[in-house]
């Protein structure tokens, strides 16, 4: 993994095959930094020994059918 957020942005942009328009790179680089702030806030702290996680929200229609 590249060291700085700028480097990571450049590497990921290439891996994703995104062709950026003139002027777009600077905006996206800022947005990328904001995105990574959000990723840090959400966290990745799920421990192996934890209770099962639940990530599937059933559609409201499945909860109570007439």
């Amino acid at each position, binding site marked *: 993994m590249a060291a700085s957020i700028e480097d990571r942005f450049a590497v990921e942009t290439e891996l994703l095959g995104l062709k950026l328009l003139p002027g*777009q790179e600077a905006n996206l680089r800022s*947005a990328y930094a904001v*995105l990574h702030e*959000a990723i840090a*806030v959400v966290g*990745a702290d799920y421990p192996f020994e934890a209770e099962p996680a639940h*990530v599937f929200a059933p559609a*409201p*229609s499945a909860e109570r059918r007439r």
Partner: protein
Amino acid sequence: MTASDPCFLSIAEAASLIATKRLSPVELVRAYLDRIERLDRTLHAYVRVLPDEALAAARAAEAEIAAGRYRGPLHGIPIGLKDIYDTAGVATEGGSKLCLGRVPAADATTTRLLKQAGAILLGKLTTWEFAIGGTAFDTPFPPARNPWNTERDPAGSSSGSGAAVAAGLCAMAMGSDTGGSIRWPATWCGLAGLKPTYGRVSRAGIMPLSFSLDHAGPLTWTVEDAAIVLQAIASHDPRDPASADRPVPDYRAALASPDLKGIRLGIPRTMFERDCPASGAMGAAFDAAVEVLRSLGAAIAEIELPPLALYNATASLISRGEGFAIHEKTLRERPQDYGALARDRLTIGAYVRASDMLQAMRRRMMLVEATKTAMAGFDAILLPICPDPAPVLGELGPYFDNRRPMYMRPFNLTGQPALSLCSGFDDTGLPLSLQIVGRHFDEAAVLRIGHAYEGATPWRERRPLL
């Protein structure tokens, strides 16, 4: 504007006159069309006005009512639809060059339900590009302006919906809300804006932005009008997989109680005092609103919710990921046809990794549970919508929600019903607002509280001077 201007009747008032044949739907539509002709060159609330179709529908409504076939309180009422709502035979372009000339073959479910209720479509309303692009000047349609001060932003993404209802250019407008896009323009335009519970109102035929966060709902002048509209559009729809198959209560009947005795309200004060402090005017209006609700008999206590930043970060990852999933193909093939703001705000979703998305989904479930726990024993919670009144048009930056986060996204994440309503005006005459958030599928309580507040305050007596 005059006190007797039919364009400033609430839906409830106009319906009462139409039902008793004291107001003609044709006259009402003509009054709105005249006003649109006069004012919309400045406000840019509409992208397309349908005068011939609206007048034909009004004549049909009038004939039907004269023949004794009155359908209910939306019969003969002129409305507008955000231009992401499909309308059969009428262009629906999402505010984007990518969709210019796109004419749907079928109505969105909500469009169909509103027509069935007798509502008359005046036209399609300005939207931020694909409901995300921001106040942009490089898209096919100019941005809408705020009727309370045309130099100010009306907010978005349902920008035309907010501007049109506040200016008296339609009696009601539909919007969509992925992170606040009904409630926010309702706030800055001084209206009632209702984001119903996720699943309560179908999204079929509405351009999607985020599968699990999108909601459809009305912007109206009064809370009672929001109840009238919700009654017409709340139903199970097999075309929307998230649509709830639940009984629909009588929302207007829920407004009958003149007070709030027995209602318990919680205030998550740290969210708007510590996490992102509301401005002085917004905070003062909120505190005054709380006292009004207390005087109506509500019991009020403070509650603690998880940090605002955690809700907003979680919602942001999910909406970015889902938005990119929807737009990836066109972003890769025709990026130059998006406005810069929409292009950037959608493209950033490409960088959300699968593990980021899953962590956000996991966190979402935890936040839903934490919110439910914090609300136990309460009928609703109260907080502002956003920290500040409307800024000058064009001053919102591309990532404004990170500089001054707003208080709406938590309830897109949890799917709870949330209502914004006017709670006064600042020193410059810009509207301030209050948000009422209920338990899932308990729109009736939210509407009851909002209606009681509205009846106890003078804010519905003031209209923009245009």
